[in-house]
């Protein structure tokens, strides 16, 4: 019997050194050629080489921003893999098991699982590159399970090793060994137990949130980056270090996050679009500098790739527990904007928006990510590079400055925005300071001036409110019950809502892209509903608290929380919603 799937989930697990990703990469290439959308994630228990690691891939005819409920195909390179993640195999799923590691541990896999045992170790002696060899062999078996043509599988393998021709022959041989094992189980070419639906293919990229955001910032004109390595934000540092120099920019690996944020402030002072990227512990260290951007009115963009906290927490695990710090952190009151994309396409778009908004408000703008969004890779359409507009805010040209009789760096204006001249411009000399100051930037504690300056800075947010990215709606627009979440919850919420609708439970969904300031549309969404479930990965319901403290109908906000470091699967989220709805 052949199952026809439009959504397939695969997992490969073994010791970190097994290069589990290779099988997943090869599989992804076939699925992509067949027009499937991809979502891929890694589950790394240990950050150093060795230790159990799993790579997961979802291919689906609909775009998805998260893994499915369970996996259809599981390649387990050792017994520990079966023991730790075997329970994720779907009923009726397929497991390829490396039996040279010992007999299949019993009691970890669902009953109806088909297990194909292969003593991979037998081939090890014949090949120096055992890991690759194992991967190609396993790939041969799963290609047959998924009813791929043998040539189709061989083609992606050849492409993968195109740069290393000496490896092609051996890996093709391993692939054929895999076909032979499949034959023994009766999985003939094009006739396996699973068949995929036909899906039209289109030009796509496979990219993580970190890379998409970093690329967005580059295109938005960021020419200065400072960072300090930290999981899960490091890819931004790596991307910038690699690319920014091509465009005449500078990327610096600072001695710590205090240095990084202050370097960015210094660069911003000269008019260069500046970015820092870090995670919770680094955001904590940057709080003073971010407040300084608010007080001294310097454009600054900060990426927070959130990880599980508090303190060092679980560096490789996803969480959304910095929301309170981003919205309220730092000493004193200062205007700020917090944007939250839900997938790599949005990360690109909001990176551009964040950069331009920072120029307008001359203050800090956060791009809030979380580990899953930051590091998981998703297929998305190509970004619209030519559609990106560089908006300089109130930055003065020399010609404009020359027409002014006098220049006040902190001129108090109706909308709070002050025209900006930068060092190097004759006639634009100013004093920039985080001390309270007068319009010229001279330190002042005059009560009238103080109040006027606080009000001026606050007004800047109202001035850009209409330009803040709006939320994305899904589900039943008119439903009395709502669901709301950001970042890593975005994709899984949509999927849960779709599936619940099939069962006759309709929900109205909102994914706000601007968390702070809270937009009127967000408040209206909540106020017009009987209840709204706010889904988030933290213990205290940080987003729900913010919404409840601002909205009028605050009794209608209810939290659905998770803080074990693992994203929701759609099924889990559905269960939680159903449970809430039945009590």
């Amino acid at each position: 019997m052949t199952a026809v799937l439009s959504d397939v989930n695969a997992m490969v697990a073994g010791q970190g050194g097994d290069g589990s990703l290779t099988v997943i990469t090869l599989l992804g290439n076939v699925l992509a050629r067949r027009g499937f959308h991809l979502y891929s994630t890694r589950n790394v228990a240990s950050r150093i080489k060795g230790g159990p690691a799993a790579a997961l891939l979802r291919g689906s005819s609909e775009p998805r921003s998260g893994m499915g409920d369970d996996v259809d195909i599981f390649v387990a390179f050792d017994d520990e893999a079966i023991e730790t993640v075997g329970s994720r195999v779907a009923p009726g799923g397929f497991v390829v098991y490396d039996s040279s590691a010992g007999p299949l541990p019993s009691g970890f896999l669902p009953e109806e699982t088909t297990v194909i045992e292969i003593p991979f170790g037998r081939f090890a002696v014949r090949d120096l590159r055992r890991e690759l060899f194992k991967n190609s062999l396993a790939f041969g078996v799963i290609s047959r399970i998924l009813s791929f043509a043998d040539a189709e599988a061989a083609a992606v393998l050849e492409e993968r090793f195109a740069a290393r021709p000496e490896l092609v022959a051996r890996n093709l041989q391993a692939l054929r060994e895999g076909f032979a094992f499949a034959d023994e189980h009766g999985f003939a070419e094009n006739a396996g137990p699973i068949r995929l639906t036909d899906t039209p293919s289109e030009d796509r990229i496979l990219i993580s949130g970190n890379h998409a955001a970093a690329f967005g910032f580059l295109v938005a004109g960021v020419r200065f980056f400072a960072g300090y390595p930290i999981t899960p934000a490091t890819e931004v540092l790596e991307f910038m270090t690699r690319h920014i120099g091509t465009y005449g920019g500078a990327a610096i690996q600072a001695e710590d996050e205090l240095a990084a944020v202050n370097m960015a402030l210094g660069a911003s002072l000269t008019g260069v679009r500046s970015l820092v990227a870090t995670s919770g512990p680094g955001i904590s260290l940057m709080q003073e500098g971010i407040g300084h951007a608010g007080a001294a009115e310097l454009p600054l963009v900060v990426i927070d790739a959130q990880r599980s906290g508090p303190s060092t927490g679980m560096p490789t695990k996803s969480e959304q527990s910095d929301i309170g710090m981003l919205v309220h952190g730092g000493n004193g009151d200062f205007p700020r904007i917090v944007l939250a994309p839900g997938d790599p396409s949005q990360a690109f778009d909001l990176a551009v928006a964040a950069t331009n908004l920072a120029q307008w408000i001359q203050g800090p703008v956060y791009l809030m990510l979380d580990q899953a969004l930051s590091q998981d890779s998703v297929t998305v359409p190509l970004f619209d590079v030519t559609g990106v507009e560089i908006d300089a805010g109130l930055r003065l040209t020399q010609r404009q400055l020359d027409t002014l009789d006098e220049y006040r760096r902190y001129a108090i204006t109706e909308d709070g925005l002050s025209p900006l001249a930068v060092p190097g411009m004759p006639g634009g000399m100013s004093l920039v300071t985080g001390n309270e100051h007068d319009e010229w930037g001279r330190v002042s504690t005059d009560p009238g001036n103080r109040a006027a300056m606080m009000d001026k800075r606050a007004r800047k947010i109202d001035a850009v409110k209409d330009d803040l990215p709006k939320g994305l709606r899904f589900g039943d627009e008119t439903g009395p019950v709502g669901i709301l979440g950001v970042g890593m919850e975005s994709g899984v919420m949509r999927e849960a809502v779709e599936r619940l609708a099939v069962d006759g439970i309709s929900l109205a969904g909102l994914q706000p892209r601007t968390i702070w300031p809270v937009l009127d549309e967000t408040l209206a969404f909540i106020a017009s509903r009987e209840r709204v479930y706010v889904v988030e990965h933290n213990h205290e319901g940080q987003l729900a608290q913010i919404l409840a403290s601002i909205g009028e109908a605050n009794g209608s906000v209810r939290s659905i929380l998770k803080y074990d470091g693992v994203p929701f699967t759609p099924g889990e989220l559905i269960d939680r919603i159903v449970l809430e709805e039945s009590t």
Partner: protein
Amino acid sequence: MTATYRPVEPIWCAGCGHFGVEAALAGALADLVIPKHETLVLAGIGCSGTIQNNLGAYGYHALHGRVLPTAAGAWEANPDLTVIAAGGDGDGYAIGMGHLIHTFRRNPSFTYIVMNNGIYGLTKGQNSPTRQGTATIDAILLGLSVLETTFIARGFTRAPDQLRRLTTAALTHAREGRGFAFLEVLSPCVTYNDTYPVWEAEQLDLDADDGYDPTDRSAAFTRVVDLQSQNRIPIGLIYRDPAAESRSFVNPAASSIEPASHVESYMDVMSRYRI
């Protein structure tokens, strides 16, 4: 010409050493004929951290201890500016000390002037890491121990001509792209720690010593250590790396950010992610 802010009157106590530092800096900027609009003076937090208000140039008040990374960012972003970082000994040697070591190491081409008075003036006289009679740090020895260091000098506000010369030399070193110019100035706080009499007695002018070779790093190190053990404080040009060449730098502030001018290249970057 557009009118801008009027420089502020110094807020310092009469007799404060910081007046001397400002006079030397203003003099050096004038001697080198550096236009005010191309001059960016960044200062830390402290009595010393108000110097930028008095000069009429572009001024920036950094966070306490963060003047070096801020100046480094400004200089990286626009190396065509004359970037001058200034601050106190508390700012530079206590809360900001970590940055000093790394700035020596990176050797960016800007000037850093530390106004050392042995105490925290602004917060009313607590000990700093250079307070004599306590366990102290010598930033000059620290700088000499970093291989990338290219310029170290120490001035004294009681020797104003030398101080102006040293300031000019530091600015010139940095402006020529030879690297980080570090100038510590003995700048007494007459209110909380009047070290004028002690420092006048203890200072020793290496500029006046014909036998001293400021281009010999190990000799400089030995000499400073020896003087330290004799309770003498060397002033003058302590070290200049003779191999420090004049470099030019890419200027991000002058780079094109219009997407239209980079479309092809951006598409290339994006193509690496194609599947």
